[in-house]
């Protein structure tokens, strides 16, 4: 057995410490020592370069412009106004003046130079945010429907996501040692800066759940309350569907083995939706998650990272064998899954009212990027709303933002601010297609990108919008997703329309996912340039406008009309 490079780095790392300290104090380079670039992911940060100027700088005999992305965990996507304000401030002080709301309801700061990492991390630590396990071979930010008004037991499900998140947070004190001089904020639930107690972190250097080598690969969990699947639970290693019986939350349907990364030209890599394996009562759900995670810990592939996600472990041993092992370790069997229906994996925009009389607002944030542009000062507007210090800020799984639980008075103020800066108008004027768009980060920071995504999709949609409006489809909620590579960060394989980057300016086009996130799409055309994409879309959208049945979703239509075959299982994705 030949362990992968990352496994060796983990092994040598003394619970994720490695030589990060030495890396930070080396002032000859803006980069870390090689092994530390793997380890720092577990601390929530990636080393990146400004790819726009890589070759320019090389010619200038300068190293690439290294900087770091930090991913700040927000379980269930819920942040306080104080936390929002701090992130806003840190983006300006240490980052590239933007915040990215991710597809997993987290914050990302980009463009942080090595020497600013520590002050930045300390900066959000003060508002009780951390980036532990933001990335790395551990359980990632746990997702949950952000919208409290959707369901009376939303709070309960949200609390469960926080509990799962807490349960799987690594216990090593490396993070506190390295970034916070050994100080750990002891009361994680306290939101008040002044009263939060700082204590010396306990020297925790064993990992009861993960053990020394952590997981073979990243691990993801999401919880959804039907009929809303806005967190795309089937894209996760574990997807939990809240089940209501007689007005009570009884437990969760459990689906396992979802995951999206694949590599072009390697048909044995593929996106896979999680398989439904049964129902579990709410008191046992953490236990079930732990067993699934630890079996993956023990059985997952540690030699080739291309095949180390849970989905491949399940494909390798068989779902039955996996579930058997899980039930053996649990000491009980799961019940049959309970019936439920998902309607959509998108967000619903605009104002809504809570049972307590307070108000929620969902805003469309293009590409999840909070930035001030000359003509559109989104960042400032949201900062002003946060300064009202009321309600909370909820990041959706579609890179959008909810401002929740505003009192009537705050609502009035917020509305005024948002109108003044054109933010409300920006949400309300969009076509259904744009409102249902997401794009991954891609260039210029993502090291893995082959093509543009976030920076390009808006202008492509400008052109698609012309077609959509011509065809009078502007009200149709059509899910469109773009990524700069096949890793699938914007969950493109669940896009009714998806463009996945192959090379600069060249995309593969996929069609046929269901609108509810329950069926993968399929390759329709390869290596299209912009004209190619627009031409193909015009054909299919025209057909849709003329021949769709009354409630027919675009994804279902493309299957019915045979543009692509339905993908029944990840294994058949390439067929």
């Amino acid at each position, binding site marked *: 057995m030949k362990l992968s490079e990352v496994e060796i780095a983990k092994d040598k790392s003394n619970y994720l410490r490695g030589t990060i300290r030495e890396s930070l104090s080396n002032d000859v380079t803006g980069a870390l020592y090689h092994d530390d670039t793997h380890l720092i992911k577990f601390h929530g940060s990636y080393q990146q370069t400004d790819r726009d100027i890589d070759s320019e700088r090389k010619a200038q005999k300068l190293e690439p412009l290294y900087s770091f992305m930090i991913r700040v965990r927000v379980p269930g996507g819920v942040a306080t106004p104080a936390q929002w304000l701090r992130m806003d401030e840190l983006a300006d002080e240490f980052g590239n003046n933007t915040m990215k709301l991710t597809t997993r309801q987290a914050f990302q700061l980009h463009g942080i130079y090595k020497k600013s990492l520590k002050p930045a991390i300390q900066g959000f630590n003060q508002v009780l945010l951390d980036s532990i396990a933001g990335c790395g071979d551990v359980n990632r930010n746990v997702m949950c429907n952000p919208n409290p008004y959707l369901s009376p037991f939303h709070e309960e499900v949200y609390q469960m996501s926080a509990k799962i998140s807490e349960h799987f947070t690594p216990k090593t004190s490396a993070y506190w040692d390295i970034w916070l001089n050994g100080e750990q904020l002891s009361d994680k639930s306290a939101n008040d800066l002044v009263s939060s107690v700082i204590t010396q972190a306990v020297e925790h250097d064993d990992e009861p759940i993960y053990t020394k080598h952590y997981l073979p690969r990243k691990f993801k969990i999401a919880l959804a309350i039907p009929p809303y699947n806005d967190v795309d639970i089937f894209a996760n290693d574990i997807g939990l569907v809240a089940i209501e019986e007689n007005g009570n939350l009884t437990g969760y349907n459990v689906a396992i083995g979802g995951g999206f990364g694949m590599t072009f*030209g390697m048909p044995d890599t593929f996106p896979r939706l999680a398989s439904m394996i049964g129902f579990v009562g709410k008191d046992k759900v953490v236990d079930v998650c732990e067993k699934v995670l630890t079996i993956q810990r023990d059985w997952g592939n540690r030699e080739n990272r291309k095949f180390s996600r849970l989905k491949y472990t399940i494909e390798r041993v068989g779902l039955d064998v996996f579930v058997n092992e899980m039930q053996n370790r649990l000491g009980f069997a799961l019940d049959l899954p309970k019936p439920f229906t998902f309607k959509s994996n998108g967000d619903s925009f605009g104002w809504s009212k809570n049972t307590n009389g307070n108000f929620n607002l969902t805003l469309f944030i293009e590409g999840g990027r909070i930035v001030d542009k000359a003509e559109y000062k989104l960042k400032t507007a949201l900062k002003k709303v946060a300064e009202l210090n009321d309600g909370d800020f909820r990041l959706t799984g579609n890179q959008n933002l909810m401002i929740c639980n505003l009192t009537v008075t705050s609502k009035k103020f917020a509305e005024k601010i948002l109108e003044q800066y054109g933010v409300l108008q920006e949400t309300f004027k969009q076509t259904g297609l744009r409102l249902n768009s997401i794009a991954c980060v891609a260039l210029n920071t993502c090291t893995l990108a082959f093509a543009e995504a976030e920076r390009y999709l808006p202008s492509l949609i400008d052109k698609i919008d012309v077609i959509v409006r011509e065809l009078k489809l502007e009200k149709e909620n059509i899910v469109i997703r773009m990524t700069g590579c096949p890793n699938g960060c914007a969950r493109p394989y669940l896009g009714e329309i998806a463009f996945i980057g192959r090379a600069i300016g060249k995309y593969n086009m996929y069609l046929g996912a269901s609108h509810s996130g329950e069926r993968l799409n399929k390759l329709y055309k390869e290596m299209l340039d912009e004209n190619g994409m627009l031409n193909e879309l015009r054909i299919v959208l025209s057909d849709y406008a003329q021949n769709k049945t009354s409630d027919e979703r675009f994804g279902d239509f493309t299957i019915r009309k045979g543009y692509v075959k339905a993908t029944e299982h990840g294994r058949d994705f390439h067929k």
Partner: protein
Amino acid sequence: MQAPLGLDTQVLNDLFIRYDDKQLLWLSGYLYGLSVAKNATGFGADTKLAPGIIGNGIAEKLPPVTILYGSQTGNTKKAAQKAGEQIKAKGFDVNVMDMAEYPTKKLKDEKLLFIVVSTYGEGEPPAAAEELHKFITGTRAPKLPDTKFAVLALGDSSYVEFCKTGVDFDTKLEALGAKRLTPRVDCDVDWHDKADEWIESVLNSLEIPKSSSNGYAITSLTNGAVKTLEKKVEYSRKTPFAAEILEKIQLNGRGSTKETWHLEFSLADSGIVYTPGDALHILPTNSERIVAEILKVSQLDPKTVIEWESGTSTLGEVLLNKVELSVITRDFLKKYAEINTGSSFIVHRSSLEADPKKLHEYVYGRDVVDVLNEFPTDLTAQTLLSCLKKMPSRAYSIASSLSAHPDEVHLTVGAVRYEKYGRAKQGVASGFLADRKNIGDSVNVFLETNEFFKLPKDNKTDILMVGPGTGIAPYRAFVEERAETGAEGKNWLVFGNPHFTTDFLYQSEWQNYLKKGVLTRLDLAFSRDQAEKIYVQHRLLQKSKQVWEWINNGTTLYVCGDKNKMASDVERAFVAIAQKEGSLTEEKATEFIKNLKKTRRYLEDVY
């Protein structure tokens, strides 16, 4: 052909197979020389032969194999290493190397060269291969008549430019005269099998025939070529050498407040021989803009015909090419006073004359246009020219080692640009190089040797080099030279500039030297990266203990760059270190440092 005198044909055969034409030719001369020497002095059996060339050694002496990989994500590295292991198993001496670390000038000496390279972007070389790729596809690529090669290309057939970089190497190596041992193999995403096939055919092509039926005839004996000693040629301001610009790079990253140019000039056929520490002089011409400004304020016609250096010329031509306009001197003011006899200028000038400090302040940042503007007078072409001085050359510390870059000289030039007295101005020489000359253009240059600012004679002596800004230039030459000669002395560099991200001149080169251990220490002072300003002297003070240790170990100290402020600040820092670490009084410490200067263990190249 029949071998004479009962020679072992097997030995001759081996020689033929193992050595290329040039080597055989050399060998023939060498043997001839040996035979002559033997006859003359009666050398017996103990005559020393070059090891491994003749005799028993010969069977083991296979030509060295170089395998270069250009990889981004590691695939080609793996393939190259695999090939390396298998070729090594055949008894070859194999060097598997990252292209990024390969000194391109070694290329021409390669006998057996294998290239394993992937393709990125849209048909571009991976970053690690960029330099070599540029080198072999560029104008400076050497002819490779003695090289045998083969190429393995990795790529992805879904790209339009499938395996383009591999193709580039393959065709270009052939074009340079190298002989292809086995056809190029292009691998798709599943590269392993095809890579194995390639390795297989490489191994076959390397198979050494056990015996060969036709012997080799040594038909003529030639003496080894006599290397003619290069004669040092004297170039000067009057008779400069026109050096072609081979490369021109802005070293500061985007957003920098600085503008520093790296320039590479060709010295081919000049006979110029320099050593690190020398300076190169540039003879610039003025910008059209300043000439236009002069003509405007003086209201003179550029076409005015004038006498110039025992001939005739036009005013415009002389102003552009022959005289200095960007700098004014006391002498200029004096001569101008002979023409501008108005009382206001005369009064002004005598007040400057009376106070050198004021004079200095006055000339700093003023050019000829400023003076003509401020104190106008009626001018003719002749009177104007009578005040001006012939364009002086500007010196630049040489930033390269001739052994690292044969036939080239490199400079590090800071562009002088500033706004003063209502006009945007530029330095004449730095502006000339930055704005008006490009790759392919020629520039008039001559060498100025510097006898003292030199590497220590003893290459075991440690050196400590302090050089912020363009002061780094000669140290690039020093370190290159020490790397080339394998000098054992330790090398410590202290550099400073405003910002780490944009102003770390030659960053990637220094990183490389650190990695290789050529550079022992590198301390950096980026003055504007934090609230308080940190300069090189602060770094020296912070490391005072080590500095003192180095000094006590006989280190030679070098300071290069800004004369006005930096050089004295640094000297004060050294004095303070001597005080603190050597427990000397200020007076003694000052004397100690003075003495170092006197004994030329503390050298300066400041301007």
